[in-house]
């Protein structure tokens, strides 16, 4: 196979640069966050009042709001809760109640002690009851006496920060092209094993390297968002995060394998097999947030969510971002394959020179 795309490289580079510029402008100046993530408490309450919801999350921030208190004046801890059945419904919550030194027993996790440690997982199921103050609502828990009061702060409502959410316009397309890269590694690995044509091996290796680059960008930007939204950089109990990390490690292993084997044919054969076997981690990562909450993941499910979607502006921006990153990937892939070809030529020349000595 000959890509024959080298002569179009400048075109691809120009188009991807233009699309990237448009993406940046849209992301920074135009697109708001996902439509469902700007609902205020007033908007949210009518839709959920009286319904049974499950909220779950972890202690993201802890603030003892009444440090000087009597035993009758229970401690208050501010925590961040996320509804795992609808990821975007993030709630800044104030949990109050219980005696000093004793906290809620919220199924399925028991939290005891004077403080809720940061990162503690908390979940509760109950009926949403509006209070006299429409900016807050009550969630009655299963346990008869337990009441979790959830209040929405500020104008931004109950949801994620509109500013930090703009990270999403670059984080998600980076992850997308990394998946594309690993998929191409699989496809061209299979094609190499069938034909033993080294050109396929070059494309497989190049796309794997680019996949690792973009996966690194996705993995590096994700925690920045997570720190802002979840209060922690990383969660080892989140399936999406862990499977993506494992996928990243597997493909770093692919690159290490290629670097370690000197012989062309052995390297190509081994890495093709490795690329095929390693690909199993890609659907694991891609699908892990889609089958939540069957498995535990609070990572956003961006596309085809049953519980809402993106605003038109956000949809346009993310669409253009995905196209821009795809063009950028193709541009880089062409250049990277050219380098692989040059390296092969160099090795052939070295052999010829060495053979003469």
């Amino acid at each position, binding site marked *: 196979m000959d890509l024959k795309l080298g002569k179009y490289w400048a075109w691809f580079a120009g188009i991807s640069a233009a699309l990237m510029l448009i993406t940046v402008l849209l992301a920074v100046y135009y697109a708001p966050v996902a439509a469902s993530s700007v609902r205020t408490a007033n908007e949210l309450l009518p839709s959920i009042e009286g319904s049974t919801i499950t909220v779950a999350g972890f202690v*993201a*921030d802890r603030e003892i709001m009444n440090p000087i208190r009597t035993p009758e004046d229970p401690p208050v801890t501010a925590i961040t809760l996320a509804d795992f059945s609808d990821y975007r419904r993030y709630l800044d919550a104030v949990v109050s109640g219980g005696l000093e030194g004793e906290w809620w027993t919220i199924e399925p996790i028991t939290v005891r002690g004077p403080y809720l440690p940061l990162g503690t997982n908390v979940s509760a199921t109950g009926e949403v009851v509006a209070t006299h103050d429409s900016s807050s609502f009550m969630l009655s828990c299963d346990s008869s006496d337990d009441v979790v009061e959830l209040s929405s702060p500020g104008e931004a409502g109950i949801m994620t*920060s*509109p*500013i*930090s959410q*703009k*990270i999403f316009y*670059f*984080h998600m397309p*980076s992850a997308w092209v990394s998946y594309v890269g690993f998929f191409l590694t699989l496809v061209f690995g299979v094609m190499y094993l069938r034909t033993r044509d080294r050109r396929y091996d070059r494309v497989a290796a190049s796309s794997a390297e680019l996949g690792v*680059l973009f996966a*690194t*960008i996705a993995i*590096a*930007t994700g925690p*920045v*968002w997570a*720190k*802002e939204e979840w*209060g922690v950089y990383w969660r080892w109990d989140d399936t999406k995060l862990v499977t993506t990390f494992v996928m990243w490690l597997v493909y770093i292993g692919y690159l290490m394998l290629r670097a370690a084997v000197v012989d062309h044919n052995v390297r190509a054969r081994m890495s093709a097999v490795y690329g095929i076997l390693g690909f199993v981690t890609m659907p694991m990562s891609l699908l892990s947030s889609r089958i939540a909450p069957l498995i535990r993941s609070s990572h956003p499910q961006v596309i085809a969510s049953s519980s809402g979607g993106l605003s038109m502006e956000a949809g346009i921006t993310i669409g253009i971002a995905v196209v821009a990153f795809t063009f*950028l990937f193709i541009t*880089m892939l062409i*250049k*990277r394959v*050219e*380098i692989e070809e*040059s*390296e092969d*030529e*160099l090795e052939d*020349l*070295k052999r*010829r*020179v060495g053979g*003469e000595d």
Partner: protein
Amino acid sequence: MANAFTALYVAYTIVWAGVFVYLLYLFMRQRAINKNIEVLKQELSKHGK
């Protein structure tokens, strides 16, 4: 929690630094390979090949 703008700038810096550093690496790698190829070709032509 961190300032949302700080988080945004940090994330955007990671993206663009990653892309541009990798592009720079590609071009430098290509240039080094081309130089070596030139040298080896000259070496071969010296030996009348």
